[in-house]
């Protein structure tokens, strides 16, 4: 990339084409609904994404351009995200005029749809929680130094008035912490009670309000010591945990928003009469749309005319662009790099690939994985048990020591020290962190439940076509027996719709071969068999070996030997004969995808048995199995969808946990039956719909990654449970026998929760160190 002198000149570097893209009518009803907001003062507001900003100088220029427009009220350009929230008076200037001005300066502005509902909800939640967390931290920190003074006084003696003063200060600090910062726990406890369940919130609310009430009593009656600092510490530490959990959720949603950013804002519709700009939301399947260089494909579709390289890296992560020609499929969000493509929309915007990805990310977040459901249920019993133990402790000590204060002290210590945080706090964080890492690797989980199942998998069943291989046959060899008559072969296959002919035609087109149709006469295609025509007065034949033999082509014994070498290869063969003599052979093979071999090796290395299942013929299947080193005993070729289903069922009956990866409609039943069904990103709809995981990158390497993520995530969850169990087993008896005062209890509980939360956050670290390469 060349160094562009944007800071010096202050002008943008956008391709001139962008400025010619017309804008849709900002007064249209649909546009207003999806993009515009009204401020209470009667202005309009919209979020614009600025394109072409290279530096702070650019950002400043654009900001100035915006602010100099008459009618623009506010334009706060965020230098980090390149977004601006523009507020302007529509009676003075239209959005189109503003964007024209930006373009004149050499940049472009894309109106952004109003944010994802999920993200909006999370932002709202952060706005609500952050100040509460800060108040809790402030209160807890200040209470700590007051507590130090109190302990010093406890040992060396302190005048009553000083003690009263410190108690008063503690009370002032602890009250907002409990009622403002701790409000969420009270709310949660109340919600739980209404639902008839008990959660961690209940335990927190009960113990903090008990200690608070007792401390108030102790301060007023000047008997015993106060424990306001325990209240604050408890709430502050738990708020930190909750806040961390929320950051995890946001991180995933941001990923989802990353996908949404890829959505173009307007599209060119081509009809017989004219071409017009329409809104993304208005697109109806069947319309012919156009993409120009640099533009993004709005909805999924099929190319009708034009040729271009298309960048699909948002889905595949592959930097290499993919050539597209009439008949190729386009998925929304890809960027057209050169040339103009016209395509027929096959889906509306809401159903296109990108939208479905976004939907999936949101679904994964909103559904509660089983491990969380179990954790929540366990937490309920835990809290119930602790409340019971605390009550019994209270009654027992009261009866034993005849001291209400002492009994209360022991019971409170029990309530505080017992910690269900490994269940209620650490598990969700671990699941979220795992999901976030997976999304980053372009692996989409249906929800977090697969973490658990993935770990138990023993058998991996792979589909061949489209999973291990590219799923797109390519010409691998053309062997000419005489002079190479490329033009003849091209012309002969160009007119046929047979897949083999199409592959050969594509091969020539990719090489840029020009076609002179005139050289052929009397072209005829015999369906399913082959082609015949006349070329320079000589009869020519093209098709499989059987077709040539039927038409009377004879092979000498020398030629027979050569033939044998060909027929032993695993690909499909196309023969060409000129004037009754065999003249060329074309070999067509479905190439093994880069990374498949390595992925199979790694799957085997971690002790999984790899199976190959394909509808293709045995020769092709064994060739692929051999090059990927899949045990030939575990290869099942010529399998119908029912056979695939039966194969998976058979494995399951033997007590195995089966993971199946596939991409086609024919894999769908088996994918559904398998314990984990994984679809490749380029799969058919049906496969995507029923799968538990999607590998957007279309690469089996991601499967290894998914296994490693779930392994680490689930491992951490289990580790947390063990840590928590040991902690509670040690701490509870101490509390019952009154060997810990509430402050120490609060400290140790907080530290144990922080420990498990930190442990959960390690998922990302572990993945980074265990070879993200």
């Amino acid at each position, binding site marked *: 990339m060349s160094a562009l002198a944007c800071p010096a000149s202050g002008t943008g570097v956008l391709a001139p084409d962008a400025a010619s893209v017309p804008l849709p009518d900002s007064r249209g009803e649909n546009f207003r609904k999806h993009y515009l907001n009204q401020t209470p*003062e009667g202005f309009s507001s919209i979020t614009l994404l600025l394109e072409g900003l290279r530096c*702070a100088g650019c950002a400043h220029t654009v900001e100035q351009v915006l*602010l100099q427009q008459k009618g623009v009220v506010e334009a706060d350009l965020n*230098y*980090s995200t390149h977004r601006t929230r523009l507020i302007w*008076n529509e009676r003075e200037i239209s959005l189109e005029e503003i964007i024209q001005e930006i373009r004149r300066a050499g940049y472009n502005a894309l109106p952004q749809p109003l944010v994802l509902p999920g993200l909006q909800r999370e932002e709202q939640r952060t706005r609500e929680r952050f100040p509460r967390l800060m*108040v809790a931290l402030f209160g807890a920190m200040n209470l700590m130094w007051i507590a130090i003074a109190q302990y010093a006084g406890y040992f060396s003696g302190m005048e009553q008035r000083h003690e009263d003063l410190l108690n008063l200060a503690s009370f*002032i*600090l602890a009250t907002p912490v409990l009622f403002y910062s701790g409000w969420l726990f009270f709310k949660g406890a109340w919600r739980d009670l209404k639902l008839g369940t008990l959660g961690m919130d209940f335990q927190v609310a009960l113990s903090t309000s008990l200690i608070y009430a007792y401390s108030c009593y102790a301060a007023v009656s000047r008997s015993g010591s106060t424990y306001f600092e325990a209240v604050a510490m408890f709430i502050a530490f738990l708020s930190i945990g909750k806040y961390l959990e929320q950051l995890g959720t946001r991180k995933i949603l941001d990923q989802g928003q990353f996908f949404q950013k890829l959505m173009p804002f307007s599209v060119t519709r081509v009809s017989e009469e004219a071409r017009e700009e329409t809104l993304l939301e208005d697109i109806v399947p069947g319309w012919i749309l156009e993409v120009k260089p640099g533009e993004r494909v709005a909805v999924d579709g099929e190319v009708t005319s034009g040729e271009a390289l298309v960048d699909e890296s948002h889905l595949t992560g592959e930097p290499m662009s993919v050539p597209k020609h009439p008949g190729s499929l386009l998925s929304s969000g890809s960027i057209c790099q050169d040339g103009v493509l016209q395509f027929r929309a096959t889906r509306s915007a809401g159903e296109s690939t990108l939208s479905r990805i976004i939907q999936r990310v949101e679904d994964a977040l909103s559904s509660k994985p089983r491990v969380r459901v179990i954790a929540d249920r366990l937490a309920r019993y835990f809290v119930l048990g602790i409340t019971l133990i605390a009550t019994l402790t209270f009654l027992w000590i009261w009866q034993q020591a005849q001291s209400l204060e002492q009994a209360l002290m022991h019971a409170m210590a029990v309530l505080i020290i017992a910690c269900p945080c490994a269940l209620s706090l650490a598990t969700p964080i671990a699941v979220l962190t795992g999901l976030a890492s997976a999304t980053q690797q372009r692996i989409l989980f249906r929800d977090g439940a697969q973490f658990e199942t993935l770990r138990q998998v023993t058998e991996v069943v792979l589909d061949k076509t489209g999973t291990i291989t590219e799923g797109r046959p390519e010409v691998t060899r053309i062997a000419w027996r005489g002079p190479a008559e490329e033009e003849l072969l091209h012309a002969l296959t160009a007119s046929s719709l047979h897949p083999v002919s199409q592959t050969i035609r594509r091969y020539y087109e990719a090489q840029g071969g020009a076609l002179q149709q005139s050289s052929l006469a009397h072209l005829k295609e015999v369906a399913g068999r082959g082609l015949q025509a006349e070329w320079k007065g000589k009869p020519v034949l093209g098709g499989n070996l059987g077709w040539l033999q039927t038409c009377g082509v004879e092979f000498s014994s020398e030629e027979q030997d050569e033939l044998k070498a060909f027929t032993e290869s695993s690909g499909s063969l196309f023969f060409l004969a000129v004037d009754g003599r065999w003249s060329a052979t074309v070999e067509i093979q479905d190439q093994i995808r880069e990374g498949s071999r390595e992925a199979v090796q790694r799957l085997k290395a971690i002790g999984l048995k790899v199976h190959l299942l394909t509808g293709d013929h045995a020769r092709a299947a064994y060739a692929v199995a051999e090059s990927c080193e899949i045990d030939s005993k575990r290869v099942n070729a010529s399998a119908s969808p029912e056979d695939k289903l039966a194969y998976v069922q058979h494995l399951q009956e033997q007590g195995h946990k089966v993971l199946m990866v596939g991409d086609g409609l024919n894999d769908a039943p088996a994918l559904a039956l398998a314990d984990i069904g994984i679809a490749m990103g380029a799969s058919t709809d049906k496969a995507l719909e029923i799968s538990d995981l999607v590998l957007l990158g279309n690469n089996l390497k991601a499967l290894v990654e998914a296994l490693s993520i779930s392994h680490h995530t689930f491992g951490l969850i289990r580790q947390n449970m063990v840590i928590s169990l040991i902690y509670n087993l040690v701490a509870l008896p101490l509390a019952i026998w009154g060997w810990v005062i509430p402050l120490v209890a609060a400290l140790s509980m907080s530290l144990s929760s922080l420990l498990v939360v930190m442990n959960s956050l390690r998922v990302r670290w572990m993945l980074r160190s265990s070879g993200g390469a």
Partner: protein
Amino acid sequence: MDILPMMLGVSLFLGALGLAGFLWGWRQGLFDDPERVRYKILLDDEEEARYQQMLKDQKP
């Protein structure tokens, strides 16, 4: 010896003031754009003033 309550009161008040200031800034979006802060010093005050003037002129 009445210095103690005063000290305590003043220090807590100052701390609370700091907290309030921080939260106010947060709500105003002061921490939303870390990039901009680095370049703020390079921007001209005149433009800032013109911007403020413009805000005043823009009553609907």
